[in-house]
């Protein structure tokens, strides 16, 4: 099945337009695409008529040009007929927004649309979903544009079983400056499942990181998914919901009791090199980090900071994640101290973590970061910045990013995320250095690189 038409349609029909209710999901989808995206969008309703001066087609087959994508937002019982119509009219694929299928006891209806589509080799997303958001191309989410927070165009594709979680993650991505290539809400995933999208995004040139929110796989689908993920050359990140055992199932063997559903799930993800995010913070941190760095590291972290407390907390978090913070040799310590500014020289702590103290200036951070970038015992540097220190300027983000451009050793940064420090943060982010609003998040970014399989 070719999914191209779903993600890059030139012409899109919205089926189920209301002539009387402009807040109908189909109308929201029609308007946002009509007014704000390059895709040509055509309204369809069996009654025909006009929608704000545009002709409403009564049937998909009436539309003169080839329709790449049909967005279907009609009552569930009409969906099988409309899918058949789309297939006969040569439409490339569909997004079925409508609910009222397996999630509300109508497995039979869902099976029917799957059979119809499968026989024709016709791809559709859903039902019971928001569908597809292709930044700057099209958007089938029935959420008014002004209510949505849209991340920049970037290289992370995210696929979610839950539409709500997906939209929430988009807000977080926007807040952290993580760019999105595609977002897909797959709802009941009746036909197109995680595996199909993994295979599609593995080939998609715009996508470098593939993230999933999964509540559960179907029978044997977990096996097929991890086998495909292990062959994928791009990092695959997965957040699993429903970790606690459901109900009190009688368990007759020790193995069944020890190898609970979630334990099994988590272990097998690890076995096949899928980066499991345990929670939303990990998901966002991993996506941000791997969208900048796709190479894996061993996890030998150099820490540069202006505060002993920040360094100590970061070391604790590193050790709880099995990341090492290697000590520096006497000679390295002497060389670092010699090159620091005169006010910092006598008071800095020049071991790892490298505490440049509250008297540090930009040059001290730049020197320390460059120096650690050249040390073989360090494979990633976490910079914990305190932008309120008097010697630190807004230029430091950009200057440290240049260190990465020269040395190519991955850098991650912590900067408190308040508007006042925006320029400093953008100095990093616009130069593709990931920045976290928490020390833990910064450490998690290094953890992401360690867990990502080498490619």
């Amino acid at each position, binding site marked *: 099945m070719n999914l191209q038409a779903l993600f890059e349609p030139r012409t899109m029909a919205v089926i189920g337009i209301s002539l009387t209710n402009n807040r109908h999901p189909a109308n929201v989808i029609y308007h946002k695409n009509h007014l704000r995206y390059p895709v040509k969008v055509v309204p369809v309703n069996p009654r025909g008529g006009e929608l704000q001066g545009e002709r409403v087609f009564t049937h998909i087959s009436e539309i003169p040009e080839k329709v790449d994508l049909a967005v279907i937002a009609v009552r569930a019982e009409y969906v099988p007929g409309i899918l058949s119509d789309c297939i006969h009219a040569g439409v490339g694929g569909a997004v079925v927004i409508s609910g009222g299928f397996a999630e509300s006891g109508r497995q039979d209806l869902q099976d029917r649309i799957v059979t119809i589509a499968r026989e024709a080799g016709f791809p559709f997303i859903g039902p019971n979903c928001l569908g597809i958001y292709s930044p700057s191309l099209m958007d089938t989410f029935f959420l008014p544009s002004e209510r949505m927070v849209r991340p920049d165009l970037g290289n992370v594709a995210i696929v979610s079983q839950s539409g709500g979680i997906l939209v929430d993650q988009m807000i977080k991505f926007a807040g952290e400056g993580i760019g999105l290539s595609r977002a897909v809400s797959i709802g009941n995933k009746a036909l197109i499942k995680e595996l199909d999208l993994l295979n599609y995004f593995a080939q998609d040139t715009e996508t470098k990181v593939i993230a999933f929110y999964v509540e559960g796989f179907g*029978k*044997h689908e*977990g096996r097929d998914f991890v086998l495909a993920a292990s062959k994928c050359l791009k990092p695959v990140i997965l957040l699993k919901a429903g970790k606690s055992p459901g109900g009190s199932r009688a368990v*007759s*063997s*020790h193995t*069944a009791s020890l*190898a609970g559903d979630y334990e*099994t799930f988590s272990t097998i993800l690890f*076995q096949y090199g899928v980066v499991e995010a345990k929670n939303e913070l990990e998901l966002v941190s991993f996506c941000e980090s791997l969208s900048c760095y796709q190479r894996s590291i061993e996890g030998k972290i150099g820490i540069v900071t202006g505060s002993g407390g920040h360094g100590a907390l970061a070391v604790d978090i590193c050790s709880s994640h099995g990341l090492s913070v290697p000590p520096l040799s006497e000679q390295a310590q002497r060389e670092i101290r010699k090159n620091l500014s005169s006010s910092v020289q006598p008071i800095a702590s020049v071991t790892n973590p490298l505490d440049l103290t509250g008297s540090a200036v930009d040059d001290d951070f730049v020197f320390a970061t460059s120096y650690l970038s050249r040390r073989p015992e360090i494979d990633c540097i976490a910079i914990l910045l305190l932008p309120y220190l008097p010697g630190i300027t807004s230029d430091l983000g950009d200057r440290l990013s240049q260190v990465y451009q020269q040395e190519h050793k991955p850098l991650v940064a912590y900067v408190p995320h308040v508007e006042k420090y925006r320029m400093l943060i953008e100095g990093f982010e616009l130069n593709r250095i990931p920045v976290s609003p928490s020390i833990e998040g910064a450490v998690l970014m290094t953890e992401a690189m360690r867990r990502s399989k080498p490619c």
Partner: protein
Amino acid sequence: MLSTEIKDIISASKERGWVLEPEAKHLCSLAGLSVPRFVWETGLEEAIGFARKIGYPVVAKVVSPLMLHKSDMGGVVVDIESDEKLSEVFHRFSQINGFAGILVEEMLSGVEMIAGAKVDYQFGPVILLGMGGTGVEIYRDVTMRMAPIGREDVMSMVRGLKAHQMLEGYRGSEPISLRDLTRTMVSFSDLLMELEGLIESIDLNPLLCTADRCVVADARVILKVENAPDS
């Protein structure tokens, strides 16, 4: 391909839902796993005859289709040193509900491990290795892999156990045979792949491991419930 003998054991146990221990052990040995020397007898004289042949001490276990968890119900007696003791145990067992004989086997020692298998709804056959014995669910020191597994997987599973140092020789203790553990696990994995559609889970617990070999001292094979909903 499954041997006819293995298929026969499984189909004969279908109604019960699990395989009696002597048959489960027989199944294991057909799959290339080591098991203790044992007999399954309904008469006392034959049981004593076997115990004398292999030499005391021996282990006795009740065989009853009504008793899946034998040791919780006093159905396992170890370190039996004499004919008298064995006959006493035999008489007690014969009062147990569903008594279908006594299993007498050689008494072995070694590090108690567990090798387990289950057929997971989402991932299919999954294999488990860990520290076994009766405390298995207290220590919970286990690792898992999606089956089939190879030699390298077994080594990484061993390294993933908290107790791995104990297995590799700790403070003067002899290391277990990782070579035979690997052989055992790979054979077990092959068996699991063959049984995928027929079983729900398997416990080989304890799997007794010494410097020379690994022996399945008890085996519990739970069969898939026919026509069960996929879960």
